[in-house]
């Protein structure tokens, strides 16, 4: 089973060493939209003196990403990042999602991350045309393993539409089915 979390679920999680000490809070998720990969996290200080830390946590330094904490080795050394580097290659939130057949799916409200390897496996989207009773409800759109092209809009294969899921719980299976289908047709 895939353990899927939304990017915003990770914001505010404590960064805890395997020795049991908390060293920071997740401020934001850095990710590479073209590679479909989480690069790391920017951090806030813990406790009452909250504020942005200069150091960031790199993906390679992470032991595990869980629902209650980001686990890191006890001897982790946070490295200060130069300002330009740490914003990753882009913020996809609020971008439009278009299929390669030219249909607008909606706008991105969050990214869905497979916690096992930090890959972005899908997007949470606010659909652009929904019946009124479902207004405001989010849908989950799977991504092909190769990632999606992002520029003015995110372009996804039209076939992904058939695998849209309305809840995160069933989404892991939808991704597996979608990628199986892509594998067979290739």
């Amino acid at each position, binding site marked *: 089973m895939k353990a899927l979390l939304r990017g915003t679920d990770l914001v505010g*999680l404590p960064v805890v060493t395997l*020795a*049991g000490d908390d060293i920071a809070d997740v401020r934001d998720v850095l990710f590479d939209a073209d590679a479909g990969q989480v690069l790391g996290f920017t951090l806030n200080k813990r406790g009452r003196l909250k504020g942005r830390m200069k150091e960031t946590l790199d993906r390679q330094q992470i032991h595990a990403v869980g629902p209650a904490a980001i*686990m890191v080795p006890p001897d982790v050394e946070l490295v200060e990042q130069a300002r330009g580097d740490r914003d990753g290659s882009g913020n996809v939130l609020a971008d439009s999602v278009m299929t390669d057949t030219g249909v607008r799916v909606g706008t991105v409200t969050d990214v869905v991350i497979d916690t096992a390897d930090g890959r972005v496996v899908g997007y949470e989207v606010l659909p652009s045309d929904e019946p009124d009773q479902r207004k405001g409800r989010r849908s989950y759109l799977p991504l092909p393993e190769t990632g999606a092209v992002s520029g003015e809009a995110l372009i996804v294969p039209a076939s992904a539409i058939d695998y849209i899921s309305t809840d995160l719980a069933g989404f892991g299976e939808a991704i597996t089915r979608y990628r199986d289908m892509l594998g067979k047709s290739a």
Partner: protein
Amino acid sequence: MNVSELVGRPVLDLSTATTAGRIDDIVVDAASRCVAGFRLAKTSGPSTWLAWDNVAAVGADAVTIERPDLLTEEPNGSGRGVRSDKVLGGRLLTDEGRDVGPLADIEIDAESGAVRSLIVPTGRMAPEALLGIGSYATIVHDPR
């Protein structure tokens, strides 16, 4: 025996047959998965640390020591106190970042001081599961 049962237990000095203090806290070292020693209250002198190696016996009604000078100063980095550092009843995380707590109690071997099991909401965990006891949480191997 669970460490919570030891809280408040008198420490009996066998050379004078008097009470040298009472156990206020039990300090567990996560690296060796053993009790490092006891922090005492109500001692007659300034020394409030009883290292596990200086204990003569852990009995049902008292912990005994051979001589009063076996109480010392607590060394730095001895471990975490299960009460003062809120290990018991505190946060329990797996190395996968899941919250599986709280940690209810720690079962120890009264002879060796070794941790025998961790008592958690879902049952017991083997001592090998224990990875660390820190200021934020106790960390265990993910059982999944």
